[in-house]
């Protein structure tokens, strides 16, 4: 047998042992094996040496190997900066997350984003805090003009009890009166939705005033407002403060400044008279039939004689002219009292309606005459038109001496001319 033959048969025997021969080849080999003992021995040798390899043990499974291999992989990837994340496995003791630089940019971006977010959040919180502060101060903002005049909780409560005057004012000034503010901050959202542009304008003004207050004044007013909001008659008291502020807005500032020197009792009296005066003036448009009748009877029986006495005017002057003269001459607008005013007014009061009586009693003495004149002849109050009408009744030759450029002079001259007997106006 040549070396090539031996190699060939050995290869076939090996392939036979490895199961790599086709069935035909395997059959052929098996046939030769039957007849050839040396071939059988060679097959046995080949199998024996091969089977010895079975004695080599498989390396036992080693968890430590797995762990150290994963660590090696992580280390290598970190060095190579390969962008691969190995999440944690059941090898809890192994830190599998490598420190990678490619996280740097996302981290920076996240940090910047976070800072921007924090900034926005802070801005929002500051703004929200400001809005919340405004909402919390809403009562004070709405009432601050009134508080500047009222200045005292007890004064405010006392004013709220002057229900007749406050009722008329509330009805008359309802368009300008900010509705009662709910105590709950959450209900204030709906409350704000119900406000008119005029209300918002007043609230803006109140907020500006609030911002200009010093800390002590703010604390004082806020404390008073808090007390009012907690009182059982909160709505009525807040209305009274607000209405008082509106009434005082129509007065000259000099009168408001006088309030600073007053004690609470004096201030209440003063504010009450102003409130009643304003309400009484509005009442002129809603006099009842009872009031009108009483006023007419009283005018003829008491008022006109009293004016004639007071002015020492000649009798027979028309009532309308007389009132105008009184108005101009005595400056009723700035307060005027008849010599025997108390008796004259006392003759009227019992015949007035309850409202009329209360209003007239609430008005200060100096203003009662102005109220009565308004009630008696609201359309006869001196006006430019009435002056011109009076002027027309002056004889033409007498008019030339009148300087129309000076209203005060004109009034005096008209009054003087009309007082002369030959210039008395003719009755219509």
């Amino acid at each position, binding site marked *: 047998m040549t070396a090539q033959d031996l190699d060939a048969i050995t290869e076939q025997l*090996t392939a036979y042992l490895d199961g*790599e021969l086709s069935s035909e080849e395997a059959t052929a080999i098996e046939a030769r094996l039957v007849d050839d003992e040396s071939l059988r021995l060679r097959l046995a040798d080949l199998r024996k040496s091969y089977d010895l390899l079975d004695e080599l043990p498989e390396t036992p499974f080693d968890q430590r190997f797995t762990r150290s291999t994963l660590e090696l992989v992580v280390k290598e990837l970190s060095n190579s900066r390969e962008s691969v994340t190995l999440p944690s496995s059941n090898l809890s003791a192994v830190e599998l997350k490598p420190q990678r630089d490619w996280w740097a940019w996302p981290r920076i971006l996240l940090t910047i984003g976070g800072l921007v977010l924090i900034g926005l959040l802070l801005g929002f919180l500051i703004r929200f805090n400001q809005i919340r502060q405004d909402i919390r101060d809403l009562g004070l903002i709405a009432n601050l003009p009134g508080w500047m005049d009222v200045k005292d909780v007890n004064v405010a409560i006392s004013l709220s009890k002057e229900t007749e005057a406050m009722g008329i004012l509330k009805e008359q000034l309802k368009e300008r009166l900010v509705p009662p503010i709910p105590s709950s901050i959450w209900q204030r959202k709906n409350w704000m939705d119900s406000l008119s542009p005029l209300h918002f304008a007043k609230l803006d003004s109140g907020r500006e005033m609030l911002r200009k207050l010093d800390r002590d004044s703010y604390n004082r007013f806020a404390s008073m407002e808090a007390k009012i909001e907690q009182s059982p008659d909160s709505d009525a008291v807040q209305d009274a403060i607000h209405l008082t502020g509106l009434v005082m807005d129509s007065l000259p500032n000099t009168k408001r400044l006088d309030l600073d020197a007053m004690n609470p009792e004096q201030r209440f009296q003063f504010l009450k008279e102003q409130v009643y005066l304003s309400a009484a003036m509005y009442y002129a448009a809603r006099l009842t039939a009872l009031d009108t009748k009483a006023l007419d009877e009283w005018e003829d029986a008491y008022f006109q004689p009293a004016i004639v006495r007071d002015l020492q005017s000649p009798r027979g002057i028309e009532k309308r002219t007389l009132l105008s003269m009184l108005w101009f001459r005595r400056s009723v607008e700035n307060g005027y009292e008849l010599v025997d005013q108390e008796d004259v007014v006392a003759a009227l009061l019992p015949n007035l309606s309850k409202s009329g009586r209360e209003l007239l009693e609430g008005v200060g003495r100096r203003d009662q005459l102005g109220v009565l004149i308004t009630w008696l002849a609201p359309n006869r109050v001196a006006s430019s038109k009435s002056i011109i009408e009076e002027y027309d009744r002056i004889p033409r030759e007498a008019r030339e001496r009148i300087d129309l450029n000076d209203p005060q002079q004109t009034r005096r001259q008209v009054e003087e001319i009309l007082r002369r007997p030959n210039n008395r106006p003719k009755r219509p």
Partner: protein
Amino acid sequence: MLRVQEDDAQAFEMLINRHQGKIQRFLLGWVSNAQQAEDLAQDVFLRVFKARKNYLPTAKFTTWLYRIANNVASNHIRDNANRREYQLSSRESQSGSRALIENIAFAPSGFQPTRQIDKSERATMIMQALQALGERQKTALMLSKFENMSYQEIADTMGLSVQAVKSLLSRARVNLKTLLDPYMADGQIPTTILADDDIDTLSEQDKGK
């Protein structure tokens, strides 16, 4: 492996757990001690992970894995050629179990090794013989024996033809027999370094018997 391609660490961990034993045994056929085999095995798995994106599912994973292992082992042998750590013939380089085997082999006749050495020592002796085979014979033999690969799969792994694998395996069995016969007969250790180049020589000796 497909999950490993998606960077699934747990899948990779499972892969290591599943193949670590066989890979280390495979590498033990190339190096002289378990620690070296372990180091090389780690290198194999590292390369597997690095090359995971190149893996094509059309190829059998073990074929791909052992191709990497074979490359790692071959490179290691070439890098350490001068050290001749794997040479059985060098008395000067004897150490550890090899010295033990040799001592046993040269012991007095009253202490004949065939009956006295235990199973683990026999395994060590067989491993020495395996290491003494040439690289390609050794690889083909181990893939056939331990991985139950067909000739075709071995051919795919080693980049050879089926006929070449058939020839390699035939010569590997003959050479293994030649290396182990003296030991199995009278306890002599294998003393010949067998590279693939030596195969013909060995085969000639075998034929002469």
